[in-house]
């Protein structure tokens, strides 16, 4: 078969790192080719080079046998390459149609957009590939899976034959993943070539025709899915043994650390976000909350932390009511917090690490001396976190944005753990970080759990939820709709509860 894409010796250097080190990649026409690797292995850089967003320092690229050199995405688009970004490149307040035609608008005289032509072309593309969507919907009204479909249609609309999908399953629930895979197979049957990045190995094995593994910017292997197991792949990716989130024995005690009773949270327009939620977490227990994003989990965490007002209900920490006390006092009483978006809520990116390490604990030892910040104390504590939690940084004076995502997360986890919280609110603690850092975060949570920390865990990674939690509750439209035992539930069933397809039998 012909080669749709051939990359030979692609090298890309950034200040201080070699993102791609003579990478070779060969993708056959009409196949689904997976690129696997840890975060920082160079997958995204490679895809950006292929899509013209970045230029390689060395190496050659061939598309359909012809040597190419892209200096912008529009050249890649002209060559028939389309990219489905992990973070959707869609404008929420524009319609599906506007989003799809953007940059490839059919026009009449005076630059008027020919909306009729656009509509019929969109319909035609949709029918050809079996993807349907209402062109007049605003993107903000769409589900995550539908938005992804818009992204794919957008690429097909431009006549792309080679599709790059950057971690397409990261934002989907299992049912949506199946839908996506059906669509991907459909596209393949219609002659498209698909190149996708993923680090969920069972998914890769399920869908890919060929798998290329990257590690530290180099291609380490190209394999067929029937030749390898998930375990083999993981070892190829990490270069060592595979970590798992599984906890061994229960450390649950009888002491209730956090009790939430009939909690009601509403937004400014009085829409109910958290609806009559009650649960308790005992010391040494991890309670996982499963749910499709946007079903009130984030608001629940905000309410417990104190950053969002509570309409009614009661929150107690170690038997003491904290419903109405401010965030700082809750933090001082022992609530630890790993935010879901570390850049927005977890760190001050331009500030040095030691200042970041003081965040949330700025009123406590060793960060203060009297009314002042204790710089030396803060720095030595940060140094301690750096060593204990394996934060890879030259020193504690560097700015937080200089660290990779995994190291930033380890700093946050270290910051919270060293303070010895009674209750830890962990929202997506391993989102977007690589397997190695993920394993370290899991170990940290497990260790603290063994010492009696109570944890409220929110995660979109169902394996993580099942592996770490002692109890899992499912949240749907603000309500807790089911309680399941992680020892017996499968990710599939959990997904069914999350979408409401399955209800708890009374």
């Amino acid at each position: 078969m012909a080669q749709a894409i051939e990359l030979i010796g692609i090298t890309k250097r950034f200040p201080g790192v070699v993102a791609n080190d003579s990478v070779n990649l060969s993708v056959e026409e009409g196949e689904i080719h997976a690129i696997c690797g840890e975060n920082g292995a160079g997958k995204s850089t490679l895809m950006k080079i292929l899509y013209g967003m970045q230029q390689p320092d060395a190496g050659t690229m061939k598309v359909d046998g012809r040597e190419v050199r892209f200096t912008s995405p529009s050249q890649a688009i002209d060559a028939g390459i389309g990219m489905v970004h992990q973070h959707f490149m869609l404008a929420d307040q524009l319609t599906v149609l506007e989003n799809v035609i953007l940059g490839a608008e059919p026009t009449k005289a005076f630059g008027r957009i020919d909306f009729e032509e656009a509509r019929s072309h969109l319909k035609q593309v949709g029918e050809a590939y079996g993807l349907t969507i209402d062109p007049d919907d605003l993107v903000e009204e769409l589900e995550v899976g539908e938005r992804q479909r818009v992204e794919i249609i957008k690429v097909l609309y431009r006549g792309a034959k080679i599709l790059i999908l950057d971690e397409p399953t990261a934002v989907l629930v299992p049912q949506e993943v199946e839908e996506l895979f059906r669509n991907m197979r459909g596209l393949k049957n219609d002659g498209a070539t698909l190149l996708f990045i993923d680090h969920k190995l069972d998914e890769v094995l399920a869908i890919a025709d060929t798998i290329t593994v990257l590690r530290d910017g180099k291609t380490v292997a190209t394999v067929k899915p029937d030749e390898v197991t998930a375990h083999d792949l993981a070892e190829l990716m990490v270069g060592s043994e595979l970590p798992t989130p599984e906890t061994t024995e229960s450390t649950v005690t009888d002491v209730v650390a956090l009790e939430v009773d009939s909690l009601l949270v509403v937004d400014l327009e009085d829409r109910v976000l958290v609806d009559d939620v009650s649960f308790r977490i005992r010391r040494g227990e991890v309670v996982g909350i499963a749910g499709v994003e946007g079903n009130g989990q984030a608001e629940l965490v905000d309410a417990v932390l104190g950053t969002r007002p509570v309409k009614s209900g009661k929150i107690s920490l170690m038997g003491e009511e904290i419903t109405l006390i401010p965030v700082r006092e809750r933090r001082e009483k022992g609530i630890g917090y790993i935010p879901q978006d570390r850049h927005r809520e977890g760190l001050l990116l331009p500030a040095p690490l030691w200042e970041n390490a003081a965040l949330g604990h700025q009123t406590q030892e060793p960060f203060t001396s009297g009314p002042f910040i204790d710089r030396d104390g803060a720095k030595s504590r940060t140094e301690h976190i750096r060593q204990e939690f394996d934060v890879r940084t030259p020193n504690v004076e560097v700015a937080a944005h200089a660290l990779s995502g995994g190291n930033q997360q380890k700093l946050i986890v270290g910051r919270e753990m060293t303070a010895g919280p009674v209750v830890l609110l962990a929202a997506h603690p391993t989102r977007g970080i690589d397997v190695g850092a993920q394993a370290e975060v899991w170990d940290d949570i497990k260790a603290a759990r063994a010492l009696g920390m109570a944890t409220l865990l929110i995660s979109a990674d169902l394996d993580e939820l099942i592996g770490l939690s002692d109890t899992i509750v499912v949240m749907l439209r603000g309500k807790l709709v089911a309680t399941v035992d992680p020892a017996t539930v499968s990710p599939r069933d959990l997904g069914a509860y999350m979408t409401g397809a399955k209800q708890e039998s009374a």
Partner: protein
Amino acid sequence: MAKIPAWLRWSLYAAVGVLVLTTVQGFDDTDSLTAAGSSQSMLRWAVPILLAGLGGLFAERAGVVNIGLEGMMILGTWFGAWGAVVYGPWWGIVLAVLAGGMGGLLHAIATVTFGVDHIISGVAINILAPGITRFLSSEILTTLEGGSITQSPRVPGVGTFTVPIFGGGNIGTWQSPDFFGWIAAREWFLVSDIASLAKGLMTRISWVSLIALLLVPFVAWLLWRTRFGLRLRICGERPQAGEAQGINVYRYKYIGVVISGALSGLAGAFIVSPELSGIYLEGQTTGRGFIGLAALIFGNWRPLGVLGGALLFGYPFGIGLRDLDGSASHSLILVNAIGLGAVAIWAATRRKRGDAALALALGLVAAGWYLLSDTLPDVWINILPFVIVLIVLIFFAQRLRMPAADGLRYRRGEH
């Protein structure tokens, strides 16, 4: 409400507004609120606000907050006056547009190319512009007959026209009938008031006002129906999405901000024209650029809404301008009280208790003030319009939605 076409909805609002004005006039036994002269003066005040608001629209739809509208408008006043005096009125307008556009270009260079915070750059331009014009005045205006360091000689205008048939304008040399004027004279309840206001909007309108009004549908068409518009709007919503489709985001931001400045410059030219002042005076923009921004926010970042905001905010200024004894402004307080009462009821039905209580309290203050006084002191005539702008924004701004990436620094390749 969403299904009613925007123009019809705004017309309904306007009709209700006139009804309130008429009723209030009944109490005060005056016709100053709905006199043809009032709407004429409202339009004169509204035009600069509208132009600045549309300017703001171009910038903010492209994702750049332009608080420098005021400064760009100041550049427009100076160059508009100087150009009109030296080269003739239309040249004044051309120069004002160019000068405003240069102000916009400066803002674009700072915010788009160098990533300066939009507010900081805008404030800098607002400080810079009066300095530049002062310098230019001292160098140039002082050499002109009748000019000084703070003012220009008389500025000639581009002329006006009156709509025939409806407003009694001439067709050739024949004076056509004055339809609205005739109805206005009948003193029919509400109908005559509307006709009177309509006549004001059709009598002796400056060509610039006409251009400004025609810009409203044109801008709506340009931004929502054309390729240029879609690409400009993506820069304000999700520039990364535009970049990923090969759209040069920087270029569209530049275009948006320069147009923004040019429209502000045009607003400045209008301010110095005989329709409003007929002279360049230092400090004469009196915050109209900011009120243009307020109209933009009130209008929910849409052209027709900006027009609504400009007329709404232009009205009290227009009334104040004609109000020599403070009686019309005094009536306006009652209008405010009624308006606040309406807001209170509206907020209460949506269970926004805080809003309802605030509106009620302000409304009661206004009503009390109205009852306990007969006229408004001079100082309040000037302040009242600003207070109205402020109150309107307090209640309306919270339910509006600006472009998603408005005011955010955009760097190519960053996510």
